[in-house]
């Protein structure tokens, strides 16, 4: 099976940039304690309850790309405080704090690499940085990454994780929704695929722009995905929300996403899909998914 091969190629190991001070991690969903080493080997999916734990951007890159293939593009663009925004704290102070916490200039990491040998350009939002909020820098880096993909002729893969647009840049944040959309046009012009992966949570202006105009939209199981946040909706309608509302599975049922894909199958899914969309010859590396493998169809016994 393809999954076996995947794991054979990616043995657990100590990662650069991801220190593991604690031996155990408590799963936020089932509250069980899991060995960090096991968790990492399982791509931070809880082995007990299958909960997909949120990933810091660097880890996401490791989960998706072939080992050692990542070449970073982002990092030179830094945020400013164009409105001199001050709430209970100055925006500039918030920025410094988030930068120290994450080691990144802003909530975005982009670069190139490969997935099962297939070259891609990748953009990963970092929820750890200010809730993955989208300001000018996030918009600019995503735009540049999309343009880079078009220029070098690779598919573009984006991992969304964001609470929405960054209030502290007001209308400038809002405009990133249009800006990124403009930048993605280059991929369309060159017939290159764009795949987005919606992870927990993806809401607001990010869902309402680049994240959902992808050619193919994947989502991680259980991810919260929506435009308005659940609290806002509850305030508006003053009634309780339906079970599973705005979760990935809910959106699949409502026709909004192409599939809910287990994190441990992302690489296979992407390689199989992008191989066909780019009309590459079937690879020596078999990444075959025949129709009966999808969860939906396995429910049907042959007649």
């Amino acid at each position, binding site marked *: 099976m393809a999954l076996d091969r995947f794991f054979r190629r990616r043995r657990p190991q100590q990662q650069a940039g991801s220190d593991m001070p604690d031996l155990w991690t408590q799963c936020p969903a089932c509250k069980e304690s899991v060995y960090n080493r096991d968790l990492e080997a399982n791509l931070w999916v809880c082995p007990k309850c299958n909960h997909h734990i949120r990933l810091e951007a660097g880890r996401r890159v490791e989960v998706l790309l072939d080992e050692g293939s990542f070449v970073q593009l982002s990092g030179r663009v830094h945020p400013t405080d164009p409105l001199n925004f001050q709430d209970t704290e100055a925006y500039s102070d918030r920025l410094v704090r988030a930068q120290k916490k994450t080691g990144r200039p802003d909530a975005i990491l982009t670069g190139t690499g490969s997935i099962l040998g297939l070259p891609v350009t990748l953009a990963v939002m970092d929820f750890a940085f200010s809730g993955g909020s989208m300001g000018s820098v996030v918009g600019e880096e995503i735009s540049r990454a999309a343009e880079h993909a078009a220029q070098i002729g690779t598919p573009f893969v984006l991992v969304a994780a964001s609470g929405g647009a960054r209030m502290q840049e007001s209308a400038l944040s809002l405009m990133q929704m249009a800006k990124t959309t403009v930048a993605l046009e280059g991929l*369309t012009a060159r*017939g290159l*695929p764009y795949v987005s992966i919606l992870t927990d949570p993806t809401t607001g202006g990010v869902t309402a722009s680049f994240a959902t105009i992808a*050619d*193919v939209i994947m989502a991680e199981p259980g991810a919260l995905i929506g435009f308005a946040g659940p609290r806002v909706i509850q305030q508006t309608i003053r009634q309780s929300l339906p079970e599973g509302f705005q979760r990935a599975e809910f959106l*699949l*049922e*409502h*026709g*909004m*996403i*192409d*599939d809910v894909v287990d994190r441990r199958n992302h690489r296979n*899914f992407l390689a*199989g*899909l992008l*191989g*066909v*969309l*780019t*009309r590459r010859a*079937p690879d020596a590396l078999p*990444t*075959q*998914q*025949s*129709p*009966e493998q*999808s969860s*939906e*169809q396995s*429910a*049907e*016994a*042959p*007649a």
Partner: protein
Amino acid sequence: MTTPPTDLKATLLKLEARVHDLEVTARETGQNLDAAIHPLRAEVERLRTAPVPAANAPMTRWERVQLARAPGRPTAHDYTERLVTDFTELHGDRNFADDHALIGGPGRWQGRPVMLLMQQKGRDTKSRVRRRFGMSNPEGYRKAMRLMDLADKFGLPVVCLIDTPGAYPGIEAEERGQAWAIAESIQRMVRLRVPAVCAVIGEGGSGGALAIGVGNRVLIQENAWYSVISPESCAAILWRDSAQAPKAAEALKLTAPDLLELGIVEEVIPEPVGGAHLDLDAAAAALGEAVGRHLDELGKLNEQELKAQRAARFRALGAFTES
């Protein structure tokens, strides 16, 4: 024609053996395997009582209609499992729902990158209900259009496997524009910049079939049918008695050879003697070869030629005199 009539007997023996195996396993393991056993048994029963076509006895049109609908008839999945690799099912119309009666996604048709669209009836009772017996709601056609957009964008030829009694006739389907979805899907196919090969593999029921049937080539399996209306509905209207369906089937001339003669299809794809269900591998091989051959031929045409050929093909259909 690939399978000799003796194959029916062989198939029956094989199926009976499998039923027996399953029953033994169920006993031994204490597992309830009825979900697997029942359909098999039903199929055995069906084959036993099915009118066995003698080699010298051509089937009536109504018999073919029944064969095309038989529960054991291979579904689109049976073929794609054998013919398609790297398939990624893409879900949803990005508007309202994911329809399970019309599904699709990119894959490789015997190695050729294509966009696959297929009507899927389901293979057991539960999935048949979920897939509405192959009758799409508007969302199915809207998903099809979305996938055609992707096909055009990435230069993937479109392969459509048609198998539907018709679009679903429900209140919600009407509320959400069943007619609109079909009309727009027809238009979307007319506008495709890539090759499109369609094959009717079971029932080709009316507009619900045509919605994904506007191909550069339209093929049909030997025992499939394709018509403007089902024999039952036609009989109910014209004879005021749906029991007259056999008569209606004759009058509608809805079988593969009829359609070839009328110029509605380019080619009849042979099935094993007695029907595709009797030798699935052989049926799949014939379908795979025919669709693949047409894809290869169409691959030589450019966008303009493809659109022009498709337009000319359909523009020419019709029978009239001119004074």
